[in-house]
């Protein structure tokens, strides 16, 4: 399988520009075949968007990238997913360490029912990423600044995170993910529960995050994909239909299914 993966790849897995490379990935939920033979490369400092109609498997695939599917008993993943050339499903890999490197932001803002400070400090604390309280303060401030919410919350770090507005909560969640210093940020429809203004703020943020991370975003909205991403993957019924530069996908798709979707005929 590995050999086959090596040969079928157009770009080598050792290519410095590739963060993630997934080859021939299949996912089963019990009897259901949710992802069918998907191969994708995710580049450094790039925003990659997964689009497609509901139930097409885009979220499922995203959750394979940091092994969040492990928490679901009936889910089974086969194929080869490599992060910096290392197989993340290798038995030697502790998913706990993987997830520190591959952070995740969810559909609904889910701040923990703790203070804002404790929310951000949660990751560094469990992974032991700091020595002194000052270190931790630095991590928290830095993360909040990078998530573009420092100015809004710096005076009330002790207030509960659940008291903020939806957009603020989602940016807290992003800051929380940044705090463990990940290489990749996975975002599962991060704006679907937000109003348009908050959405704009988060999108702007995603664009800034590209400087330091590679970002994978699952989105329902094609406009959003077009606005924030450089690469786009179109999923349909568990298949990866088309993957390429965002401009190309939206202006000149190769596959007729992609065209139907972006023109609004399916989805």
């Amino acid at each position: 399988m590995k050999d086959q993966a090596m040969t079928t790849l157009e770009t080598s897995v050792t290519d410095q520009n590739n963060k993630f490379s997934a080859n021939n990935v299949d996912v089963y939920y019990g009897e259901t075949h949710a992802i069918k033979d998907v191969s994708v490369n995710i580049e450094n400092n790039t925003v990659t968007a997964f689009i497609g109609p509901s139930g097409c498997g885009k979220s499922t695939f995203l959750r394979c990238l940091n092994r969040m599917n492990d928490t679901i008993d009936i889910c089974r993943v086969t194929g080869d997913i490599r992060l910096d050339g290392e197989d993340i499903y290798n038995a030697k890999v502790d998913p706990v360490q993987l997830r520190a490197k591959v952070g995740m932001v969810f559909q609904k803002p889910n701040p923990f029912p703790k203070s804002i400070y404790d929310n951000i400090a949660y990751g560094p604390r469990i992974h032991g990423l700091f020595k002194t309280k000052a270190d931790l303060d630095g991590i928290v401030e830095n993360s909040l600044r990078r998530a573009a919410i420092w100015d809004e919350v710096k005076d009330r770090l002790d207030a509960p995170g659940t008291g903020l507005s939806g957009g603020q909560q989602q940016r807290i969640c992003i800051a929380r993910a940044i705090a463990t210093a990940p290489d990749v940020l996975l975002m599962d429809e991060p704006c679907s529960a937000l109003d348009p203004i908050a959405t704009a703020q988060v999108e702007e943020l995603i664009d800034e995050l590209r400087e330091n991370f590679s970002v994978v975003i699952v989105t329902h909205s094609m406009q959003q994909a077009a606005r924030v991403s450089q690469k786009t993957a179109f999923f349909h019924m568990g298949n990866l239909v088309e993957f390429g530069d965002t401009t190309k996908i939206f202006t000149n798709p190769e596959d007729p299914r992609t065209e139907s979707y972006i023109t609004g005929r399916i989805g």
Partner: protein
Amino acid sequence: MSTFTLFCLIVVLAVIGFFAGRHKVNSQSKPLHSLPRYYGTYVALFAFIPALLVLLVWLLASPIFLGKTIASQITADMIPEGGSAELVLSDVSRIAQGLRAGADNGLILTENINDTVNLAVLADVLASSGVFLGGELNPDVLQLALSYTDAAAFSHFLMICVVLGLAMAGFVFAYGRVNPEFWARNRVEQTYLGVLILAAGLAILTTAGIVLSMLFETINFFQLHEMRDFFFGLNWAPNFHGDSELSILPLLWGTLYISLVALLVAVPVGLFAAIYLSEYASKTVRSVAKPLLEVLAGIPTIVYGLFALITFGPFLKDWFGDGGFLGVNWMGDARSVATAGIVMGIMLIPFVSSLSDDIINAVPQALRDGSYGLGATQSETVKQVVLPAALPGIVGAILLAASRAIGETMIVVLGAGAIARFTGNPLEALTTITTRIVSQLTGDGDFNSPETLVAFALGLTLFVITLALNIVALYIVRKYREQYE
């Protein structure tokens, strides 16, 4: 006419009413507003419900009213030495009962009884109908009993007239109103609604009953016994010759101590069991272990009591008692705080675990995902995200368990002992509020002595404590649920 016959009569009247009402609208050719049976039901309800209500109220009120009337006629010379007006009153009603039974059996004619009748003969007659008199039949008391019987008979007669009259009146009134344009269905449904509201109101009535019944006797108690001693005294030493020391504090100490031991067993075990079941266990393990644990909650408390008394207490004594395996003589009696507390803890395990399980399950999956997504292990997620999020709910569950422990009776009656004192040694016997309620109310003492009445004061205190715990707990749990709905 017996009350039962009377009841049957109004039922019959209602049934006739149903058919009459239905027939009346059916026989007219005009279009009907409602189905015919609603017209029938309307008449039946009118004949039945008012009559039934009056019947019930009468049956409840008349003994009280008659008792009051008779009590007011008891004079000081009727009261034998060492007796009380209440005893005379109960004699009167028992004699009256015996006379009635005698009359029913044809042994005596009620009209023939007067003070010229040989009292000894009368006592025999009474004995034959199961009424045995302690002393000699006092003619004055007999007179009272006679007037009691007369009054009761009159009241019964009056009740029959009123109830039957009301049933007829209802029948006639409703029958007169029934006609095809009449909105029978709506009226009938209004009546049904009234019945439903009454049923819901019974809950309030029960609470009121609990509070009032205990409050009256508690007030009686405080007239006989100093309130200060009850609340702030340090000794519990009931003495049926009077002069008792009846303080709640030693009992409260025993109750709280045993409950604390029970919670120390139940909360860690129950909480960890709930965490394991909701976060770790596979579906199969959960489907087996959860119902099995809940079996513990379904076992009647008497079983736990027996277990404490016969098995667990002696087991503890084998270890800690005189000549025990540990060679220490810390335990004198098999009944102790630990005996009752630990067994009660076992009983509370499923109580804590299923409540906590529900509450932990109510924590949204999104929070867990958020934590896993950051690379937290399952236990870190549970300890740092799930439990803090579920904390208010779990506190509520523990408070409910505490209220259960405080009000538990059978385990402490059988396993805790009967010594009221302040001791910190869990291997010594202590007593609780509930055990004292049982022993004071099942003892042989006079009902109106402070030693018996204190049980009501204890009961009221117990009710107030558990009610407060419940209200707080339910409020917390409710708020908690709203947060995640």
